[in-house]
């Protein structure tokens, strides 16, 4: 279980997150929904230890990862698929995955499993990441995170700007990860992108959690979404 306990964080002196608390159980998909600038990406970075916390704690299965130096956080079992993919662009597909494997101390069988999820990457194995199409890059970013055998997976707008077939492929993998017992925390701006997969939805507004609802409720009544994020 991934747990944020009254997390406050920001950039320099500018505070963005105020006392954000969340829980994502193993085998659950929690979606963080909010407008631009609500603090969604900041929350992801705070979990990864890329921003110093001003208060609160992040725990994974009881271990307080927010006390670890940033480069130990992935080793604790958190895989991160950042917004805009942020691949190591000049490195090949193989090298990008190798960095993921190394981060989790995983071996060649993990690589085979991940490549089985994304067969396209196997075809592009020796190609540089920057030569891939947008969808393939998103696959690689997801695969890189899966290579460290995460117990918690963070996805920041994973379907942004992708064509429908790619969105479908990424979504399939996310659902498979849930079935495998991974705690999935997903950030999205558009509600229709998350409702098909999310178990619960947390609304974030100007750095505060306003409400957490089961996705069922939102699927039944779209009016609630409009009330919270006004779109």
């Amino acid at each position, binding site marked *: 279980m991934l747990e944020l306990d009254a997390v406050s964080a920001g950039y320099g002196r500018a505070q963005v997150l105020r006392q954000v608390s969340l829980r994502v159980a193993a085998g659950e998909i929690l979606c963080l929904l909010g407008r631009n600038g609500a603090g969604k990406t900041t929350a992801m*970075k705070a979990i*990864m*230890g*890329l921003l110093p916390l001003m208060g609160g704690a992040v725990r994974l299965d009881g271990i307080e990862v927010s006390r670890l130096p*940033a*480069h*130990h*956080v*992935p*080793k604790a079992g958190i895989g*991160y698929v*950042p917004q805009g993919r*942020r*691949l*190591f*662009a*000049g*490195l090949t597909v193989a*090298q990008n995955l*190798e*960095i*993921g494997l*190394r*981060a*989790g101390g995983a071996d060649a069988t993990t690589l085979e499993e991940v490549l089985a999820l994304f067969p396209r990457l196997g075809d592009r194995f020796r190609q540089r990441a920057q030569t891939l199409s947008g969808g393939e890059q998103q696959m690689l970013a997801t695969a*890189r995170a899966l290579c*460290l055998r995460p117990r918690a997976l963070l996805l920041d707008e994973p379907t942004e700007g992708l064509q429908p077939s790619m969105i479908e492929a990424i979504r399939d993998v996310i659902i498979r990860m849930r079935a495998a017992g991974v705690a999935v925390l997903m950030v999205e701006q558009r509600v229709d992108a998350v409702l098909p997969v999310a178990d619960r939805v947390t609304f974030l507004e100007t750095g505060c959690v306003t409400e957490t609802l089961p996705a069922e409720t939102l699927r039944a009544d779209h009016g609630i979404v409009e009330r919270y994020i006004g779109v």
Partner: protein
Amino acid sequence: MEIGPYIMLASLEGAVTAAVLALTACGLSLVFGVMRVVNIAHGEFFMLGAVIAWWVAQGIAGHPALGFAAALVVAPVVVGAVAVAADVTILRHLDYDPERTIVATIGLLYIIQQLTLMTYGPEARPVQAPFSTRIALPWLEHGPEGWQVIWPWGLGTTTYKLAVIGAAVAVLLGVWALMARTRIGLLMRATQMDREMALAFAIPVERVYALVFGLGAGLAALAAVLIVPIQQAHYLMGGDPLLLSFVVVIIGGLGSLPGTVLAAVLIGLSDGIISVFFSPTLAKILATLLVGLVLVFRPQGLFGVRAP
């Protein structure tokens, strides 16, 4: 004598300059590329390498080759260790902020320079070359009996100068192999491309930085050990290598190692040739002018990639 032999002589001298410059500039380029730190103290690491080479060579009795060989190992390692210490105690605490690290490395420059003046003194001291046999070089001339080989007076080089060129090429190939073929090279390149993502994938960025800073300084020190039998060790000798390294790194493209090496060959050779036919000052003027032109018309350098 015609002009041909002069050009050949000047090119040979230029090739030695180019070889040493390529090593020094690669160190600077590596540090800038991976850490985004503009290291003003780079020339002092070069000087420190030469001075330590003198200490070591002085302290070891016997054949000069013994002292030189020891210096070749000791100087880069000691200078690398000094650089790692500077990284851990100073740069890390500035969060590698681009502006503050410039000021910090300027301070480092004066500390190293003045400490050397206080301990080593203001003299220029030579280190004996391990071997230095003169080789006369032949030239072809069209005489009354057709083409014939002549040995123009003054056209020659030494085995040591050729060895410097060979050693520099070998070390550069080694650096390339380190970056392209090893795991630590992969981590360095990943850190260079995206520091935050490197952290998010368990790369110990701080350790990579310390290693890169040490490696960069070690390369400068190694270049200095190679040149010190030709140039002598002096506490102010770091200025020229620093200027020329920046010239080369900017022309080649910041952070691009192949560009740096190519620019070093270009600048080194033209420096040698212009120095022989006109004056060393003109060579520096033209090199600096070239930097200006590159910055205006191709700011990312000849081989650099424009930042996205």
